[in-house]
């Protein structure tokens, strides 16, 4: 574990070698796959599914239920996967929840004002990029603590949401966007398909491309990465902008899904997403670890448990308690497996 994170791979990638791997027997490979965080989270997900099936019955995997889970998990997934680049680069971005809200408010208000939705979407994404650049400017240029800067941004953006939306926000039901965010494609939630697509692309970038290795290297040990000739600043700027733009897109999608945006939309979303990402093997306190697939599985575990509690009509307060326990167990398991120990 330690070797994987502290010896980032500043090796020039060799496309021809991408798929060749040591010939391990299949059972060894399966066994070893359960040692990593993705392995244990797959196991947790399997247990969640099993509990769901035993408790609720086949209804748990009915198309309508998959639709419900898919629709609710897709936007956090897209936002989370984009934000995971910042985590990977070692710069946690706490402002994503407020950015989702701010993006949604900007998009909703401007669409309601009669502007073309496509143009407004572009403006919203630009706003996201500007926020990301501002975070990056203070963090990278001035060397400020990411946690502190993005916490300030979280506060600032939430304030702006409340300044802009002082009374009931307008309703903007945009049919095409509604159909994408709430609809199904071949019996599967469209937005979840998009989210999984984004996850797979991100996973490919992280594990197979030079950019991905650079991000991991910077997050794992920035000094070593700098010595290896990687521009630490550039990687972190890009990662923070990706994170913010992802949140802005999430905001747009929420407006599609909900037909409006109140000034509390996205409050606390950052911690929900990061809890799920940490269950999936990421860390908010050190970079260089985690894989988007793990993030997806982490979000699915939380969404699965939420759904089990929902359709059995159990008090949702228990959800946060269960998520808290799973999170603690997940980081504990990660630590026992050789992750960082805090003393």
């Amino acid at each position, binding site marked *: 574990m330690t070797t994987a994170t502290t010896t980032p791979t500043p090796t020039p990638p060799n496309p021809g070698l991408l798929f060749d791997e040591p010939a391990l027997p299949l059972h060894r490979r399966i066994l070893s796959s359960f040692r990593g965080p993705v392995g244990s989270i797959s196991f947790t997900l399997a247990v969640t599914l099993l509990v769901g099936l035993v408790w609720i019955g086949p209804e748990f995997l009915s198309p309508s239920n998959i639709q419900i889970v898919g629709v609710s998990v897709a936007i956090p997934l897209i936002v989370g996967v984009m934000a995971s680049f910042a985590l990977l*680069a*070692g*710069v*946690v971005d706490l402002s994503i929840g407020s950015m989702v809200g701010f993006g949604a408010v900007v998009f909703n208000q401007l669409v309601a004002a009669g502007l073309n939705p496509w143009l407004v979407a572009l403006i919203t994404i630009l706003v996201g990029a500007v926020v990301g650049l*501002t975070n990056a400017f*203070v*963090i*990278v240029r*001035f*060397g*400020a*603590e*990411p*946690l*502190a*800067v993005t*916490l*300030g*941004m*979280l*506060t*600032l*953006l*939430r*304030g*702006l949401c*409340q*300044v802009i939306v*002082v009374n009931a926000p307008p309703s903007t039901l945009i049919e095409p966007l509604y159909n994408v965010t709430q609809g199904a494609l071949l019996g599967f939630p469209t937005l979840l398909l998009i989210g999984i697509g984004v996850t797979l692309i991100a996973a490919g970038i992280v594990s197979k491309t030079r950019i991905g290795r650079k991000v991991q290297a910077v*997050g794992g040990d*920035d000094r070593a990465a700098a010595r290896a000739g990687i521009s*630490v*600043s550039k990687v*972190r700027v890009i990662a923070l902008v990706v994170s913010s733009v992802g949140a802005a897109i999430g905001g747009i999608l929420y407006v599609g899904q909900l037909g409006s945006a109140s000034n509390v939309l996205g409050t606390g979303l950052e*911690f929900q997403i*990061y*809890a799920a990402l*940490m269950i999936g093997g990421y*860390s*908010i*306190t*050190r970079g260089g670890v985690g894989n988007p697939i793990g993030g997806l599985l982490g979000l699915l575990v939380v969404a699965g448990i939420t759904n089990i509690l929902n359709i059995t009509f159990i*008090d949702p*307060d*228990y*959800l*946060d*308690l269960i*998520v*808290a*326990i799973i*999170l*603690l167990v997940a*980081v*504990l398991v990660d*630590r026992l497996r050789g992750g*960082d*120990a*805090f*003393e």
Partner: protein
Amino acid sequence: MTTSLITPADPAAPVSPGGRKGRPDSRGATAWRDALSIAGVWLLLIVATTIVRPDFLSSQTLLAVTFTMAISGILAVSQALIVISGGLLDLSLPVSLILSAWATVTALNNGLPTWVAIPIGIVTGAAWGLLNGLIVVFGKLNPIIVTLATGFGGLAIMLIFFKSAQIPSTSELRLYGLGRFLGLPNVFWPMVIVIVLAGLALTFTRWGRHLRAVGGNAQAAKARGIDLRRMRLATFAGAGAVAGLAGVMFSAVNPSFTPASGAGFQLIVIGAVILGGISLSGGKGNLLVLLLSVGFLATIPTSIAFFGLAPAWALVFQGALLIIAVGIDGYRLKRTAR
């Protein structure tokens, strides 16, 4: 190297395996500079507001600001202790606050005398801190992650057990919460005492030196023979007790509250700590600067009201200030590192 991994990645910070940012020789000077800059900005805000509204300088403003400082100031001390000890952040502080307030109020409602109810509140806070500390120490887990989880879970547990709580309107504690001493709200004074006591303890006692040492470089502190586990448990329990006191004061001024009532303090308290020059990487911090920072942040909402702006603008300004402040702080560290 382990120590540099547990702090948030800090690209430009001059972290070398041996010595970290906290340079004992320059600490006093840094504190003075932090204090002067915050006092300067605070003065600027007061002058600007006074130009627009000359009646800003009044006993009413003083009362409004000191009242706003009371609860968040005590909580800021609790948070500061965690941060200085290298615990990064305690995200479960709203739970400590409300849990202690609820324990106090429940004791009073069950007819227990005030002198029993107040310690119950403080001990509840300490117990909650100790719980966090035990998980951190025996799980060897990062406190910010642990308290993120216990913050979630703690709120959930409170929501399951109570919907709202009310302090008896005739209880001594309630009357104390409504009273005034030397022209300022009663609840302001415990905050001052806590800041002064904690500040003195941090500077002049062995415990304080150890706390800073552990926060500055845990491994070096361990090598010098400091028992890390004991230190961490004591810090979490102590910081919890301080938050417990905040809970007692909270129950004295909020006649009715719900489990979620503490949420509003989270950001303002963390903001005050960071603005007060207490670095998230631990080991450094001066509580008198923290007092200035709490006072400055508490003045913003009142100024906003004098300007006639909506209260949401206070969030915008506080957020922007936080970003600017940590930017300047980071820049300074970067320059001195060269």
